[in-house]
């Protein structure tokens, strides 16, 4: 057995020295552990808000023809409940756990970008407050959490609620994407020696795959909500059928985000279960490779199933059948996981701690939710049960009975690590049984309500046989579930003060976070155990029967990725996804003739072609500039950088001139859908060029101040990569909009 190795990369700990104290320390922190806890606490606050919203709705629905809530209030509440639970509770909880655990599990000192991490966190309370500000500014949005057009257009949603919803989601989305970029960069570049990708704990692997889902799905949402915002505030018609827009395009764009989103909410939960079940069954996960591979399969397939949310829309049977096939297919890798977790228990030595109880309940409840999901993939069945309480039951089973129960399991499992104290098992068991009975009572009967014909999103219902009784039962279950949450909160409060001290590894678990103290020190580890398998602490504790070595001896190459490059590439993938959506919108609306201005009548392709050449030339100049920087010739670098900035500025001025010309011809953003899509696509590209110019100017300033010495030029090269991306996007945009005019 070799000696302990220390982590290979030095990370500055900004808190060393004049560290802030007390509450301000929490506000100013860049420590991933504190940021993780901040995420969890904020999510908890919004969980209570969303939970109260749910209970208010359940009171209103407990009896037929009830008048506890007005229809306006009910409709705002169900919209806010969904939006809050998804964007302000589940996602932050999962990001918070990832934030806390990933660096620890890979033997790192912190995330790759601690300050970006802090910014990502602060966008959460800001976005959440902005969303809720709508209540004071004319009313919360009342169009449902997926905001279908044209109901969400100004004509039918005349308050500013939808506008606050859009702005809040944009802000929250920036935080989510930034966190995911950070996680990808961290996992790829900061693993301890010996921790190859094949030896990653499954929680880390699932967070890694999940992060790619986030960076591709959130931009799709951003594109959709930006277009809705432009419709609402600039009187355009992206999604208004009255002037050529398409209500269905909103649905396609939204669900292109919305479906991956539900997997974003599921994969980290799968990660938690994959850690908890093996430890409390005292067995390694059954079939690690299949579980890891199935995660990738789910991620890939999740982009190919979105229109199963639209089976009732009338897309035609061939399209319905395609999405039926893909939706059924995605059940297979999920099933692989459920079988693997179950088989892990088989032959083990199972300790039914509270964490394990929640994990076992997850297995059954998630299976129920997953199976009801499969019934939806059978298109004719969907045609009867979609948009009913059967659907409400389905998604609460997977999201609450599934994801949230997994979170509870994770909480009981990792609370000792985070706080140094055990949660009370006595209160935990009470919490569990109340939650189990409350949850299933509240939601199982909703399957029957749906089958009985009760549609969703109705503020009341007629006194039909059985409807009142089942709704009342559901309400009672919901309150029991609420009480269970109160027990959990009490457990947390009591255990923080009087909980049994935990020690480093109270569960005799096997992943690296348990090698640190509880709670870990600011730098996490002074030394990291040797890593040859997926369970380094098992190998240490059982030298007589360690796990077989996974993969061969490790090489340096595997750890040679550089974090600036990784994060920029990841960011560009996400921006690319955003532009793909805008380009698709342009192509969709411009593939047929329409009244009003056209490309031929409005644009000057030759002039724009000249400016395009300038932009392309600027890619060459910045490439040359980087070579000069590598060759330690800062003055030449600065000249070429200046030339790049100049060429970029010429391009922007050319664009500006084209816009002026177009305005003078009387063409505004709302003239027709060509004008709308033209300004949106070129406008966002222009915005990216301007941001790039600012970045280049900052690089110029840093270089003048003497930075980028001794080959530490990765940051500058990353900006260069961004600049090439902006040029590449322009090539596509130019081809789509202008090339036809030149040929």
């Amino acid at each position: 057995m070799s000696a302990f190795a220390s982590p290979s990369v030095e990370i500055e700990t900004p808190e060393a020295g004049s560290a802030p104290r007390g509450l301000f320390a929490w506000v100013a922190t860049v420590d991933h552990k504190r940021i993780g806890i901040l995420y969890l606490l904020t999510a908890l606050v919004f969980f209570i808000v969303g939970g109260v919203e749910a209970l208010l709705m359940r009171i209103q629905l407990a009896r037929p023809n009830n008048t506890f809530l007005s229809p306006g209030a009910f409709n705002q509440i169900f919209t806010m409940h969904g939006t809050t639970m998804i964007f302000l509770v589940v996602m932050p909880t999962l990001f918070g756990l990832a934030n806390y655990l990933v660096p620890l599990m890979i033997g790192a000192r912190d995330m790759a970008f601690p300050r970006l991490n802090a910014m990502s966190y602060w966008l959460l309370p800001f976005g959440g407050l902005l969303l809720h500000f709508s209540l004071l500014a004319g009313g919360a949005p009342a169009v449902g959490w997926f905001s279908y057009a044209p109901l969400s257009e100004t004509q039918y949603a005349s308050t500013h609620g939808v506008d606050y919803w859009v702005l809040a989601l944009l802000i929250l989305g920036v935080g989510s994407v930034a966190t995911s970029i950070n996680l990808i960069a961290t996992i790829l570049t900061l693993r301890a020696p010996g921790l190859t990708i094949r030896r990653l704990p499954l929680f880390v692997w699932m967070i890694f795959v999940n992060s790619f889902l986030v960076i591709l799905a959130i931009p799709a949402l951003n594109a959709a909500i930006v277009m809705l915002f432009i419709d609402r505030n600039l009187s355009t018609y992206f999604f208004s059928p009255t002037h050529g827009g398409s209500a269905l395009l909103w649905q396609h764009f939204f669900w292109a985000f919305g479906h991956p989103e539900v997997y974003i909410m599921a994969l980290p939960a799968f990660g938690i279960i994959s850690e908890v079940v093996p430890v409390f069954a005292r067995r390694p996960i059954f079939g690690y490779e299949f579980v890891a591979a199935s995660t990738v399969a789910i991620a890939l397939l999740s982009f190919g199933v979105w229109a199963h949310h639209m089976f009732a829309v009338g897309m035609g049977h061939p399209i319905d059948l395609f999405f039926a096939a893909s939706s059924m297919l995605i059940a297979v890798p999920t099933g692989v996981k459920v079988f693997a977790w179950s088989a892990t228990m088989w032959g083990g030595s199972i300790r039914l701690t509270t964490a394990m109880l929640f994990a076992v309940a997850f297995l059954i409840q998630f299976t129920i939710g997953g199976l009801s999901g499969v019934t939806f993939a059978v298109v004719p069945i969907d045609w009867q049960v979609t948009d009913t309480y059967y659907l409400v039951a389905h998604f609460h089973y997977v999201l609450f009975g599934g994801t949230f129960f997994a979170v509870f399991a994770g909480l009981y499992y990792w609370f000792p690590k985070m706080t140094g104290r055990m949660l009370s098992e006595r209160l935990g068991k009470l919490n569990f049984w109340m939650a189990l009975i409350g949850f299933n009572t509240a939601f199982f009967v909703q399957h029957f309500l749906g089958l009985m014909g009760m549609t969703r999103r109705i503020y009341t219902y007629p006194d039909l046989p059985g409807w009142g009784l089942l709704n009342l039962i559901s309400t009672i279950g919901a309150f029991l579930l609420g009480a269970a949450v109160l027990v959990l909160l009490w457990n947390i409060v009591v255990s923080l003060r009087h909980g049994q001290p935990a020690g480093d590894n109270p569960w005799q678990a096997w992943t690296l976070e348990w090698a640190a103290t509880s709670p870990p020190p600011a730098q996490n580890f002074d030394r990291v155990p040797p890593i040859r398998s997926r369970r380094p602490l098992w190998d240490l504790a059982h030298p007589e029967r360690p796990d077989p070595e996974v993969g061969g001896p490790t090489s340096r190459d595997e750890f040679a990725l550089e974090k600036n490059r990784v994060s920029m590439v990841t960011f560009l993938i996400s921006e690319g996804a955003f532009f793909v959506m805008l380009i698709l919108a342009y192509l969709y609306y411009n593939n047929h003739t329409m009244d009003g201005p056209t490309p031929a009548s409005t644009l000057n392709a030759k002039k724009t072609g000249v400016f395009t050449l300038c932009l392309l030339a600027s890619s060459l100049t910045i490439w040359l500039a980087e070579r000069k920087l590598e060759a330690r010739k800062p003055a030449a670098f600065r000249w070429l950088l200046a030339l790049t900035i100049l060429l970029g500025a010429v391009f922007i001025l050319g664009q500006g001139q084209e816009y002026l010309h177009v305005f003078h011809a009387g063409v505004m953003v709302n003239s027709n859908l060509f004008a709308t899509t033209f300004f949106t696509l070129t406008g966002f590209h222009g915005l990216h060029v301007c941001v790039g110019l600012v970045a280049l100017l900052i690089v110029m300033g840093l270089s003048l101040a003497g930075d980028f010495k001794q080959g530490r030029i990765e940051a500058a090269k990353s900006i260069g990569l961004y600049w090439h991306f902006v040029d590449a996007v322009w090539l596509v945009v130019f081809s789509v909009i202008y090339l036809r005019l030149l040929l």
Partner: protein
Amino acid sequence: MQANFSPIFDPASSQAAAISGLFMVVLLICAIILAIVVGMVGVGLIRFRQRPGSAEPPSYFGNRKLEIIWTAGPTLIIICLFVLTARGMRQSDPPANQEPDLIVISHQWWWEARYPQTGVATANEIHVPAGSKWLVRLQSADVIHDFWVPRLARKMDVVPGNTNYIWLEARVPGQYAGACAEYCGAQHAWMRFSVIADSPETYAAWLREQQNPAALPATDSARQGLKIFQTMTCANCHSIRGVSVAGSAAPDLTHLAVRRYLGAGVLSNTETNLFRWLKNPQASKPGCLMPDLKLTDAQASAVASYLETLQ
């Protein structure tokens, strides 16, 4: 009156029956899979409960053969489900180019029904002859709604800017409850409707009556009500054939008196309820597009008595 707790499993058309049958097969398959998982977990929990003083069990990392089986097995099941799905969809195949028998136009928050062959227009209560398979064209006047009569047909969204078609068939006479199934704003909850399948003779009689213009008021109160209808802006939104033509901003009232409900299901159609509605529609259906016209009790009473003559 529902014979069965679930209209989805109480089909009254061949389309709904095909879906119901398929659903039962799929639920059975799901139940078996759930039983397997519950069995694995349940038995595992009991058999492999930690015994006090026991050592760590042997490490077992997986069984490739088993993993392949539980990947391939579900894949085969899914292929079967897909075949069943494709077959089940055939019952609702879209029609070849054909004129619709019924045009349904959805509004916030009521259903307009037009019978193109006879020019009949009504609202929220759709009569069809039992045993006929009709082609229904679905159009929206505003936002996305959804036409859903679970005992008779699949759900179909009604999308502004698009036209959708479904088959509507009721094998036996009866009343079939329907509801809007896509959230469409403030009063989505009360956008209910019914499809009433009549025997051919009853249907023919109903159609004949519907084609007649509005009955003339016979009492003073009714005459007063008609006058109020014509002078207090009601006629701007509501059509009454023979009296006023108003487009379709609001339901056609020509034969209001024979309908079973008011306000798309929120009130049953009695003279008391009609009075209540007229006095203040916003109290019965807050947010609906009919304003409170601030009628006095006498005015509302007169209009109600007029409308009740519109058989």
